[in-house]
Every structure is written in C-alpha cells, then in structure tokens.
C-alpha cells in the first residue's frame, strides 16, 4: 500500500477552470502538507494541517483552498486556474507538526503534475 497517495498524477486543463487534487495517507500521521514545485524544481510549502486544523498558510492566492475532512486526507482545490499555476504539487505527511517536539520526518507522495494551457 502506498503511504501517501495523490490523485490525479497528471492534470491538463484550460485557464479559468477549477480543479482539485486529492491526497490520502495511511500512516496514521497527524500532520499533512501541500508543497508546490515550480519549473525550476524549487519546493515551497503552501499549507499544512494538523488534525484537520490549518497551521500554515503561506502567501498563496486565495484561489487555492485546502480542505481536510479528516486527518488522513488533505485535498487542494484551485479556482480560476492561471498559467502560473502549472507545477508539480506534492502532498506530504508527518507524525506530528514539524518543530513541535524535535523535528519530524516528512513522507511525500509521488506528486501531481498540473499543466494549465
């Protein structure tokens, strides 16, 4: 069983559309994250949730809305897609919040490549 699974793996869509990426982890972790990897492979955190509570909300356009229905799932919905949203989006999870008691190791999903035309 995949520890952190994301769907879809590839997503091609037109500008202005709304799309969602889903993430599920079966590790029993409390904390989940969304990272964005741009075309230069730079990884930047977007959001993190701990036990369904939003903890980190970086400077991300409000067209991006994460939702965590339970601590095993963290979805990312993007409204009014723009060309600049094209990237690989990685979901990750960790046992507890990074930095809360030492550091925790993040386990990453395989990524969802979003292409906006």
């Amino acid at each position, binding site marked *: 069983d995949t520890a952190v699974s994301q769907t879809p793996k590839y997503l091609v869509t037109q500008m202005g559309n709304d799309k969602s990426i889903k993430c599920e982890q079966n590790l029993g972790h409390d904390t989940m994250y969304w990272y964005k990897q741009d075309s230069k492979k730079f990884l930047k955190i977007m959001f993190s949730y701990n036990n369904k509570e939003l903890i980190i909300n970086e400077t991300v356009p409000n067209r991006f809305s994460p939702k965590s229905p339970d601590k095993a799932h963290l979805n990312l919905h993007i409204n009014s897609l723009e060309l600049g949203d094209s990237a690989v989006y990685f979901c990750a999870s960790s046992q507890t919040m990074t*930095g809360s008691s030492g550091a925790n*190791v*993040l386990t990453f999903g395989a990524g969802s490549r979003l292409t906006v035309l």
Partner: protein
Amino acid sequence: AQSVTQPDIHITVSEGASLELRCNYSYGATPYLFWYVQSPGQGLQLLLKYFSGDTLVQGIKGFEAEFKRSQSSFNLRKPSVHWSDAAEYFCAVVNGNKLVFGAGTILRVKS
C-alpha cells in the same frame, strides 16, 4: 530564520567515483537537517537526517552526511556512485514549523 543553500546546480561524476554534494545552512539554534532525493518523475525520498548527537550520520543507499557547525555545512557524501544515483538531491532544514528546502543539486552519472 533558518534556510539552506546548495551552491551547485549540477554535478557530473563518473560511475564508481566518490561524490560530495554541498549544503550550507544559515545560523541559528541547533538545526534539524535533512537530505532528500528525487528521481525523475518521482516524489521525494528521505536519505538521512540530523537532529543531534553524532555529527556523521548514515543514510540509505550508502549515503552519509557530516554536520559541521564551524562551517555551517551538512554535506552529503557517497564513496562510490552508481548510475542509479542520478537524480536531484535536496537539502532541507526545519524553520519554525516548516521544512524549508534548498534549490536542489542535479547529479548526473557518466559511465
């Protein structure tokens, strides 16, 4: 705020040669440092981590890294590179409640 710098964008080594990938971290309290590897089209896999204690840490796939406070470095090493090691390598540091990544180093292995 903690951050990491990976000075080398690309490195090419011959198969069987030794490897060292550089990572420098910004000054702060004892850093929590990580190395991850990303193979083409894949997610990130943890190679090793340093939290405290022994400054030489062993990881998976024959990798090791040494924490040097005097040089603010956490360089990744492997004594003999295999063609399957070709990938992108990311150094990362905990900054508050976030894991912050360096820009990555692409490793090419020539036969």
